[in-house]
């Protein structure tokens, strides 16, 4: 009986979480288009999500592209299909790896700090103070973060696509001795614009997901410093899992 109670409680709290998420999503959507528009804050958040994430995303996608080339080259060499390495690297990066890995890295880097920041504002009554001063916390805190994530994630992914493909080229041509001209030709032979755009759409959706989860987790933080820690962890774990789930359904939907 205890077991069923425990399971029931978990399901209820999961449903509660879902409810909060979508309720807050509605509020964020509403407040995004209402004045006053705090442009400087939007820019500050874009710098945090976008510009500051460039090194992490650069390294992640570079090495992903490199390892992709290495693996496929070794595998494809077994049936003399080395010429397809460029295509495989380009397709898997643009459609799948760049958006997902970028989103996971940014969730760890930015999502955690969003949850911690908003969470500690909650436990030190700063969110109450904002409200008391007639400022809507959803508008002041969440809207700039969510908007920044939605706008910056696609840009990071475009950069990641390019960097990853270069990583693949570097490994195949410089280390494995592939012909540079055929490699580049093959890279773009099967690549279509829709491959890139679908990755960009995914990136924007992932941005929305991780930033919303981080903000909502932070907003409902309770229980002092420990609570802030819990919120931060849950923002990263829930955010990463949600990105992976969403990735599956988006892929199903977009292709």
């Amino acid at each position: 009986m205890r077991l069923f109670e425990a399971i029931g409680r978990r399901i209820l709290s999961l449903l509660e979480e879902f409810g909060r998420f979508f309720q807050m999503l509605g509020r964020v959507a509403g407040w995004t288009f209402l004045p006053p528009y705090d442009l400087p804050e939007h820019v500050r958040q874009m710098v945090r999500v976008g510009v500051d994430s460039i090194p992490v995303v650069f390294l992640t996608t570079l090495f992903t592209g490199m390892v992709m080339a290495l693996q496929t080259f070794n595998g494809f060499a077994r049936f003399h299909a080395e010429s397809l390495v460029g295509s495989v690297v380009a397709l898997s990066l643009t459609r799948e790896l760049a958006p997902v890995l970028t989103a996971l890295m940014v969730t760890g880097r930015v999502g955690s700090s969003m949850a911690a920041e908003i969470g500690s504002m909650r436990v030190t009554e700063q969110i109450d103070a904002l409200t008391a001063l007639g400022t809507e916390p959803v508008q002041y805190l969440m809207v700039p973060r969510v908007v920044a994530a939605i706008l910056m994630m696609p840009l990071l992914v475009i950069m990641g696509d390019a960097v990853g493909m270069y990583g693949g080229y570097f490994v195949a041509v410089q280390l494995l001795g592939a012909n540079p001209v055929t490699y580049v030709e093959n890279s773009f032979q099967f690549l279509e614009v829709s491959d890139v755009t679908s990755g960009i759409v995914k990136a924007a959706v992932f941005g929305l997901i991780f930033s919303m989860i981080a903000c909502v987790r932070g907003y409902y933080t309770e229980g002092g410093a420990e609570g802030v820690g819990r919120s931060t962890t849950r923002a990263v774990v829930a955010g990463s899992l949600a990105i992976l789930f969403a990735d599956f359904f988006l892929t199903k939907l977009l292709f």
Partner: protein
Amino acid sequence: MEAKRRTATSGEPEPGRRAATKILVEKVSKSFDGKVVLDGISLSVAEGESLVIVGSSGTGKSVLLKHLIGLLEPDSGKVFVDEEDVWALSDRERNALRKKFGMSFQEGALFDSMSVFDNIAFPLRRSGRPASEVRGRVKECLEIVHLPDVGGKRPSELSGGMRRRVGFARAIAHEPEILLFDEPNTGLDPIMTDVIDEVILELKERLDVTIVTITHHMESARKIGDRVALLHGGRILFEAPAEEFLRADHPAVKQFVEGNAEGPLTVDFERQGAVPAGPGGSPSPGESGGGPTVPRPPREEA
């Protein structure tokens, strides 16, 4: 709009009084995780009046204050500000209504991502005042709380007492109609306690603002309060004009004013075998939830 407006109470009080009511709390109850913190509390504050709420720690004074400005939504009952039902308004209307308020929080609640200057300037900038005016007003507010040189500092560089005073300065910056002070002088040295009291008095006399203050200092209560109310067990046990309150013969009031560990306010805890908590102790809110041993005096309500 008309539907949301209501006359203050459903008609009982005399009309003369109703017009002057700034804040009206009508049978508000609030529980947290099953613990009753406010138990059908009713309260009214007249325009230009200074009401002081006293009571042991953890009796829900801050919770009551947060209901006045709409930071917490009552489980049942209603809160009216200027005869508008706070929770019948839309989010936007409620935010607009909150701009009538200035509130200082127990720990200051300063925005730690901003400098002290930006903290105090925040409400001014949000209401679109020009930069020069903002600068002047922030300087003025910092001088009022005797902290003229801290504008460039971060809240984390200030002591607790200084943070509280900056919070106070932020609350009065936009010259609100209603001021809520949550223990404005707890943890301050005696001189600063008096400074804050003086500021409150001056605001009251000069600007004719409505003030609700929570405090433990009976001396402050006497000085700044037109009326004092004792909160216990989620209800107002006793309220009276300040001087009358201090001389009152009510056992609970006497215990609080004199600061005795023994008395009707602590009976609950003794019976439960807990440490007797006098004024300044910190029983959790639920434990004081209106047990039968608390004598119910004739309550003076509007």
